[in-house]
């Protein structure tokens, strides 16, 4: 049965006060860097929005993204808002099983053709379709079939957004991201392993409010959340600027809370909102608990050369190669230099002094 109540009606039926709802709207608006004047617009739009149909597809994944969303914040407003979308298919959360589950998906697709949202977590194996199937349908077929009638796709988690850990070298299943397969639909990448819950709800809230996808960066991530690096917003940044670094995990610097750059923190090259929104209802985030950032919201983070290797260190043994290359380069440079010098010397030897007569004649 299709529920036609608005989001506002559903929230109030679940005992969420108007005040609590507005607080959520304000938090969402500020997270997305919208001006305060937008809060009423967000509230208005969310209150009146029809529950969009959402089909959640889980492919090669660990269910961590779903865990992140459902557990770590529950029971908060974000969780409840998420409940109040029409989540018509989610094979981890739904009650239905077997053919009934697949029917629910097909039914939702038919009823909301062209207007439903598809959320994907997990990468898609192209090596052999048998690596991951649901009800006998390969992931790639299910994605193509479901995406065909979708209004937009939200790729949740680094696996769906960039291939993630299944895609890591040597990528035995031939795992790829959603954007490698679907080219004709708007795709919002909400990367992270797992992504921050409020980023997921924020993106959905934006979609409900404005009816379109938010502004995206060059990797398809919403700039409101992925516009700055962890490093830019890190509370340990002043130590970096002063050149104060922890050298080991138990030295004086570590105890003083100095910058973890030398211990391999990937914060300077990682775009995400962890340092701002934090985790577990705003309790902490990895750097605050004393460990460097992995860079989990970036493509190929698993292959970027070791979590404890500082960013400025090379990721491969280049010593010998560099030595040989330098020698060869120096030899070639010396040869070319000799050639050029003699070329120049010949030209200088042939130089005839320019006289004022020459100039006056010209």
């Amino acid at each position, binding site marked *: 049965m299709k529920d036609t109540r608005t989001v506002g009606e559903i929230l109030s039926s679940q005992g969420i006060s108007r005040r609590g709802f507005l607080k959520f709207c304000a938090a969402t608006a500020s997270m997305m860097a919208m001006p305060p004047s937008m809060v009423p617009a967000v509230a208005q739009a969310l209150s009146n929005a029809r529950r969009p149909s959402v089909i959640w597809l889980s492919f090669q994944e660990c269910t961590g993204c779903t865990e992140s969303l459902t557990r770590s914040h529950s029971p908060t407003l974000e969780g409840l808002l998420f409940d109040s979308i029409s989540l018509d298919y989610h094979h981890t959360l739904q009650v239905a099983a077997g053919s009934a589950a697949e029917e629910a998906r097909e039914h939702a697709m038919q009823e909301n053709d062209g207007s439903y949202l598809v959320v994907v977590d997990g990468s898609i194996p192209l090596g052999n379709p048998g690596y991951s199937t649901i009800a006998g349908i390969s992931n790639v077929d299910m994605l193509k079939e479901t995406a065909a009638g979708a209004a937009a796709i939200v790729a949740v988690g680094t696996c769906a957004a960039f291939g993630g850990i299944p895609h890591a070298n040597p990528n035995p299943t031939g795992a790829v991201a959603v954007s490698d397969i679907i080219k004709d639909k708007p795709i919002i990448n909400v990367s992270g392993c797992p992504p921050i819950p409020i980023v997921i709800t924020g993106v959905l809230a934006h979609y409900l409010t404005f009816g379109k996808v938010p502004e995206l960066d060059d990797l398809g991530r919403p700039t409101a959340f992925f516009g700055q690096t962890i490093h830019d917003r890190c509370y340990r940044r002043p130590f970096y600027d002063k050149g104060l670094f922890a050298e080991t995990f138990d030295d004086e610097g570590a105890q003083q809370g100095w910058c973890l750059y030398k211990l391999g923190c990937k914060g300077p090259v990682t775009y995400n909102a962890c340092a701002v929104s934090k985790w577990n209802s705003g309790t902490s985030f990895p750097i605050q608990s004393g460990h460097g950032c992995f860079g989990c919201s970036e493509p190929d983070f698993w292959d970027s050369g070791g979590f404890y290797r500082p960013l400025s260190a090379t990721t491969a043994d280049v010593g010998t190669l560099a030595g040989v290359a330098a020698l060869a380069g120096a030899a070639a440079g010396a040869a070319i230099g000799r050639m050029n010098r003699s070329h120049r010397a010949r030209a200088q030897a042939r*130089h005839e002094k320019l006289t004022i007569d020459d100039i006056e004649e010209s």
Partner: protein
Amino acid sequence: MSTSLERGIRTWVAQIDAPIASFFTSCVHCGICADACLFFTETGDPKYTPIHKLEPMRRVWQQEYTFWGRLAKRLGFSKPVTEDELKEWEPLVYDSCTLCGRCSMVCPVGNDITYMIRKMREGMVAAGYAPEGLKAATSRSIRIGSPMGVRLPALQAQIKAAEAETGLTVPLDQEGADYLMLLSSAEIMQFSEIISAVTRIFDEAKVSWTLASKAFEATNSGMQIGSSDLAAQLVQRIVDAAEALKVKYVISPECGHAYTALRWEGPNLVGRAYPFKVIHILELLDELRAEGRLKTDGFEDQRVTFHDPCQIVRRGGIVEPPRNLLNMVAKDFVEMEEHGIMNWCCGGGGGVSANERADPIRRKAFDRKKHQLEGMGVAKLVTACSNCRNMLEEGLEDNHLDEDIEVVGLAEMLAEHLAVSNRADTGESTSTAKE
């Protein structure tokens, strides 16, 4: 042997040195130099982008000195530099570049584009593509001894006038003096007050100095037209005179490029180190000030600003001395927004003022200086280069600002405020001031 395209290209091959090669290699084509050039900012035409003015020489470098360029040349894939191109580039290299050096300051990879233009002109003049006005000035420099055709009798007349005015002797050809003072033709012909000014200042500060009848002209059109051969001849005259008079220092006058020619290029042009030191008049005056030998009385009662001559300040590094000196005599000394090493050129340096063809664009480029002066409320625009002074006077007149702003030479302004001690009439010993 007459000038020719082939001779020009051969000159470039001989002139392209390690700095030029590394500058061309380093250029990242960012175009930042465009906004540093007043010919671009005042016209908005991208052909005035400084690095673009070097295109023919860049091609020669590529075809003669790079692996791929040489390969392409051998296989017949590269386009040789043509007469038509040189014709097209001549105004870019001579009319719309004052060698002011502002582009070199902003280049993010540190290319000295001004140095490159200087080398570019070597090939242009050898190929026969140099402006008539500048050729004529160079010709007068070599044949007569001064780009404006000034001869010794003219100087002697001005010396007489200065002696009459000051009641002091202006030393000429005095062997064994410490300092040999040079002048620029513009100073002799238009701004001859400078002769009395330095005579009075040096007399007061007890500086042993002289002028030389064989080398009074400091300017160097050979460098401006871009011929090291001719520039060397002109520098050699000064070196010979300084050596004959056995001076310890040669003073470069209030003339921008004369200082560059004599101080920075000179020893390389003549191929050996000088047995004397070159010092700029502003440096010397600032030294005298620091030693307490230059004292002034009173202050200018109007607001003044300083126009930095590019070759003296930006290219010459003499940034503080003019300001120290101005502060001695001006209470209301204000700086233009962009001043010192980032000043804007008057528009007439690098031989542009000698090139009549460049008049329209030079006058257009003066808009930059006009905008700089707007709203400053200055009554006096002080400078330390007679060429700048000419250009500024002309530009202000064009813009009907000459009634409001007077252009003044710095040394003269100092001389006006010179504190004169009362001396015994013999002039030999300083007597204490009589009440």
